[in-house]
């Protein structure tokens, strides 16, 4: 059996004004993969292909060892899927939805569902139309988590939530991962959420994956070097530096493959290194997207 929860190889999907291009993505079992991208990047399309809801034009998709969309029924028994635009039946209560899901999934964990009701501050007898957006998201996640799925696929689960609700949901997702057999793929354009809980990160922009790797290793590779450049000194082009922005005597070099000897190289050229700073995932995300777009446009 494969040790990958999700495997996409050469996946493409073409629409009149958007194309998902040659997507390769691997989510190891027991890992949380954060899929980050701006609006319209292709996150939802990728996730729908993973779920078998949209059929790819070409490429192979395997989820929990099952080929998608052909084996989607078998795969979905072990997948919990929720998306930002998913709605429950407004006229029915949360209890009705819980009974509905319980009637399908033999693995439904009723005590855990009751625990989640308390943790999320939900009332089972309340109709869905009376719930706030945050409560609806929590209700949907309750229905997903209490199935005890091996794989969680979440499309923008924290969008539109207040900080407290976001924290509650991220904490619950982290708790799910105490069982090492479980995996999560979740998309977001909120890099803070991804940075907080992901083991792996993948950047996607304009239908292309522009980077995918272990989060810690990835964050460790990126640095921002603040330089003072005397008049007449030209900064050398160093491998691993993806961009330099200069304003008068001050310059900022962004490195995506930082090595300590970069500072020496700049010092040797006559520049002075004022500071070497780590970057947040959001800063890396923006820099990466900008570089990718420049490469495509060039």
């Amino acid at each position, binding site marked *: 059996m494969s040790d990958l929860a999700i495997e996409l190889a050469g996946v493409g999907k073409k629409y009149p004004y958007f194309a998902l291009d040659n997507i390769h993505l691997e989510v190891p079992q027991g890992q949380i993969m954060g899929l980050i991208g701006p609006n319209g990047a292709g996150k939802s399309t990728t996730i*729908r292909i993973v*779920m*078998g*809801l*949209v*059929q790819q034009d070409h490429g192979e998709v395997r989820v929990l060892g099952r080929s998608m*969309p052909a084996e*989607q*029924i*078998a795969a*979905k*028994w072990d*997948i*919990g*899927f*929720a*998306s930002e*635009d*998913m*709605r*429950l*039946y*407004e*006229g*029915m209560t949360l209890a009705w939805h819980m009974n*509905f*899901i319980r*009637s*399908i999934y033999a693995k439904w964990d009723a005590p855990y569902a009751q625990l989640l009701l308390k943790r999320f501050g939900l009332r089972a007898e309340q109709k869905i139309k009376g719930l706030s957006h945050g409560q609806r998201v929590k209700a*949907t996640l309750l229905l*997903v988590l209490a199935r005890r799925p091996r794989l969680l696929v979440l499309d923008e689960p924290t969008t539109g939530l207040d900080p407290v609700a976001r924290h509650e949901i991220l904490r619950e997702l982290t708790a799910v991962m105490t069982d090492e057999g479980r995996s999560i793929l979740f998309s977001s354009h909120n890099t803070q959420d991804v940075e907080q809980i992901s083991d792996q990160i993948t950047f996607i922009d304009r239908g292309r994956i522009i980077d995918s790797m272990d989060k810690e290793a990835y964050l460790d590779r990126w640095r921002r070097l603040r330089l003072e450049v005397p008049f007449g000194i030209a900064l050398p082009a160093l491998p691993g530096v993806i961009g330099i922005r200069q304003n008068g005597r001050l310059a900022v070099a962004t490195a995506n493959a930082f090595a300590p000897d970069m500072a020496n190289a700049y010092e040797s050229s006559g520049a002075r290194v004022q500071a070497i700073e780590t970057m947040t995932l959001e800063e890396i995300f923006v820099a990466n997207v900008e570089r990718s777009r420049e490469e495509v446009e060039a």
Partner: protein
Amino acid sequence: MNGGVIRILILKDWRLHRVQVLLSLAAGGVALALLQLRDEAAFLIGSVWLFVSLIVLGSMLPVSNVINERKKQSLAFIMSIPVSAVQYAVSKIISTVGMFLVPWAVSALAATILALSRRDIPNGIIPFILILFGLPLVGFCVVAGAALITDSEGWTIAATIVCNSSYGLIYYFLVRNPAINGTFKSPVPVWSAAVLTILAGEVLAAGLILGITFYLQSRKREFV
């Protein structure tokens, strides 16, 4: 074929739309009560009401059971459970058709029994009654097919308008057809070739529309 999940989906649709079905049955009951009265105006109102209740149900069910599930974004929730697009289509066709067929069959049966039980109504009218009941059945299949195939409220409403505006026209041609109206006053039902052809045509049309709907639905590559 994952029959358990399909059954659960059908029961879910019945649970969600039971009020509509019960209201339609109640409207049909009131119409039949009016038909029982030996008063010409009440008979006319009752017979119109009986068909209107079926036409309204046949127009509303596809919208609320198919279109609204997509429009109100509950489809992704349903498609997250272990079901394929084909199985979803099967469950929708069975639940929508079933919810219509119950009030339709009850009304058709009750109207036939009423015609048989009343001495002032010649039994020769029964084939015509059944032909008339076939019209909202075919119309419902057209509207349901449009809803399932197009997933579009606009196209579904267009199909509803076309069907609803054609009932009067079809009725006009039927009552003026000597092969149909010639046996109205017969003491026994006359199952002429014309009557059987029209009835068979209605059944065939309903089956064909649902078959095409299922075929096209099962070929969809994108679902949500």
